[in-house]
């Protein structure tokens, strides 16, 4: 709704210098930008209620089809970088907490601080310069025209973007894991477990990880949701046809059906991720299960 107050008109994306007034009027009629704002909004809500995201003003293709095609890039990109970030950040975060007094524990903390400070596009450009332009190990960008029908090619083009997101994501994730682990280390139950004869490692694995995981999982959920749309910067650097770049282009062109479609679908995805994170927490922590069980 607010977007429609921006100067500009979606019909403009379809026209060029040379068009006459009749053509401009016809284009505005076609995209509906000649209607009053409340009426445009009502139309959108009505079709949404019928699960119809409409067709793009500009490409005249189904919004849902395009979103699905774009998700085929964004979802693998997000999930793979997310998994990589977990694989890197969780062990390192635990080491950084447990061995905080050793030089490598401290070093991990310092490096992760650095990872938080550098912007993601800079990491992307750096990786392109070194691994694509200089070393020619990976493509500098783009996505194969055959898409996932050429799986190796597709993975190769996603490699650098995945690393880029994973570097930045694991840096912040690592800090959460580290502080969660530190909390666990200072907790009474861990001391009790050790007092009852468990070794340090055993106590940490049996009691510590479960407890430490609960806050980390909720952070993971938030991070995953952010990355889904936050991948736009990386998509731009690597010219990937993902959901974020679709949104960016749609805003430039004032292609309202596309903007609304992307926002709607991404809201659904964020809710879904939140729900899954909740489920995961309940699975990890039996107390959460019991609490919800008492409130049917």
């Amino acid at each position, binding site marked *: 709704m607010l977007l429609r107050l921006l100067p500009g008109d979606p019909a403009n994306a379809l026209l060029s*210098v040379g068009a006459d007034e009749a053509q401009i009027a016809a284009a505005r009629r076609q995209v509906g930008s000649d209607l009053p704002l409340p009426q445009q909004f009502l139309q959108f809500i009505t079709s949404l209620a019928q699960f119809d995201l409409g067709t793009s003003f500009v490409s005249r293709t189904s919004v849902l089809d395009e979103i699905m095609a774009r998700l085929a890039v964004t979802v693998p990109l997000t999930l793979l970088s997310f998994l990589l970030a977990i694989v890197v950040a969780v062990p390192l975060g635990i080491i950084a907490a447990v061995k905080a007094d050793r030089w490598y524990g401290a070093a991990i903390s310092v490096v992760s601080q650095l990872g938080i400070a550098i912007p993601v596009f800079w990491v992307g450009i750096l990786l392109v310069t070194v691994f694509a332009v200089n070393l020619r190990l990976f493509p500098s960008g783009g996505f194969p025209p055959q898409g996932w029908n050429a799986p190796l090619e597709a993975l190769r083009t996603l490699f650098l973007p995945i690393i880029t997101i994973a570097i930045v994501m694991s840096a912040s994730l690592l800090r959460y894991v580290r502080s969660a682990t530190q909390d666990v280390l200072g907790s009474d139950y861990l001391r009790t477990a050790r007092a009852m004869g468990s070794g340090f490692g055993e106590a940490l694995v049996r009691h510590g990880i479960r407890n430490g995981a609960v806050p980390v999982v909720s952070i993971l959920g938030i991070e995953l949701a952010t990355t889904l749309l936050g991948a736009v910067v990386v998509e731009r650097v690597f010219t990937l046809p993902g959901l974020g770049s679709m949104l960016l282009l749609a805003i430039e062109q004032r292609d309202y059906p596309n903007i609304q479609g992307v926002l709607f679908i991404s809201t659904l995805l964020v809710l879904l991720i939140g729900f899954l994170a909740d489920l995961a927490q309940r699975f990890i922590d039996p107390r959460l299960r019991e609490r919800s069980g008492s409130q049917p």
Partner: protein
Amino acid sequence: MTRRQSWAGWGAGVATAMMLVLGSAQAQEANPNATIRIGSLYEPQNLDNTAGAGQGISEAFNGNVYEGLFQLLDDGSVQPRLAEDYSVSEDGLTYTIKLKSNVTFHSGDPLTAADVKHSIERVTAETSKSSRKNSLANIESIEAPDDATVVIHLKSRSISLPYNLTYVWIVNDAAADLTSAADGTGPYKLDSWRRGSSISLVPNENYWGEKPKNGGVTYTYFTEATALNNALLTNAVDIITSVQSPDSLAQFKDNPSFTVSEGASTTKEVLAFNDRVEPFSNTKVRKAITRAINREQLLNSIWGEYGTLIGSFVPPTDPWYVDLNDVDAYDVESAKQLLAEAGFADGFSFTLDTPNYDPHPIVAQFVQNELAKVGIKVNINIITANEWYTKIYQARDFEATLQEHVNHRDIVFYGNPNFYWGYNNQQVVDLIAGAEASATEEEQVEKLKEANRIIAEDAASTWLYLYPQIVVSSASVSGYPVNGLNSQFFAYDIVKRGQ
């Protein structure tokens, strides 16, 4: 060295480069099955040039997927394509066009006169978003007396009709959807379109004419010039269709792995005044501003040794080009004098609406500095391309603006007093209308040359410079068009050696 000389020097340089390319060609055979990978910044918004697809669709589809009755070749000449031959009646009002036989669409349907009629009417239809719709407005009616003959009746003589038909795609009248699919007669058919990423074309096995010299084409789209250049550097694409930033040329120029070609451009950087409003309704003010801007220095600071200075809207490749650089040559003293004569000895201030993408913001700053020297204060107002279209093109709510005008043969805009810049000189209106109604090309050229001189004398706008048209390719690739007139990029003659 003047611009024109350096331009000619470039031609020679390109020729040498081509010879070098040809020399090394003997070492490696051209591979007829190679897919040519073309990198571009202009992704079409959809696949239909009457539905607002943008210039990218001309680049990918003109002459490749779709053909017209006539074709504008890369050298600027107009040749029959799907027309076998044609005749014009004595009064110039009736064109009878015979179609080539044995032409079929990609879907298998034969080409008939009904398809041609449908295709032209698509461009002139009410819902058409073609920027060229007006050029075809004097078509009275179209008849298809038999399957192989099309008769076009005009309201008035139109010497440019064959030229204007070069951007009318002949499409299958049975095709249901042309915005996300295609059904043409060209040497390639559409294989796939991945929005935001690429368009792939494969050879049309049943093509009526000469088969493509390669095994297909993929256009890959980039949003940033750096990413596009990186793709060429890393061998992810073979050719980039237009270089937008001169800084990036250094990495290709002295490298034997790449060929840099400068062709003839039709893209003009224009400082357009709203000629309806004070003080720009005063010719002296417009001339003063033109004289106060050192355009040679501007071009040099943006493009280095590339690009051309033009004294009017007409580029050297249009048949009605006249060198008008001296009409309002750079001269600060005479600019001040003209301003004084116009009653602005102490200058004035105005707002320059500047599109937010390159090179406009830099050009705006340059203009601001130059005009400050003659006492004119420029307020730069940055707007998006979309706002430009609403505020300036439609509402004409502006004092002055910057814009690049890309089309070939677009001097006609100065013959339309209703155009956004509001230039209104009856003599020019008559000359431009008269040129179109000419019986011979000589007459047309003569009239447009005259119109060209007048708009330059009137400083209807300030024509800052003509962009260079630069194509860079891997040295293993040749046969591509270097001029790219009207954004076309014919792919069928491109060959790639090795692999």
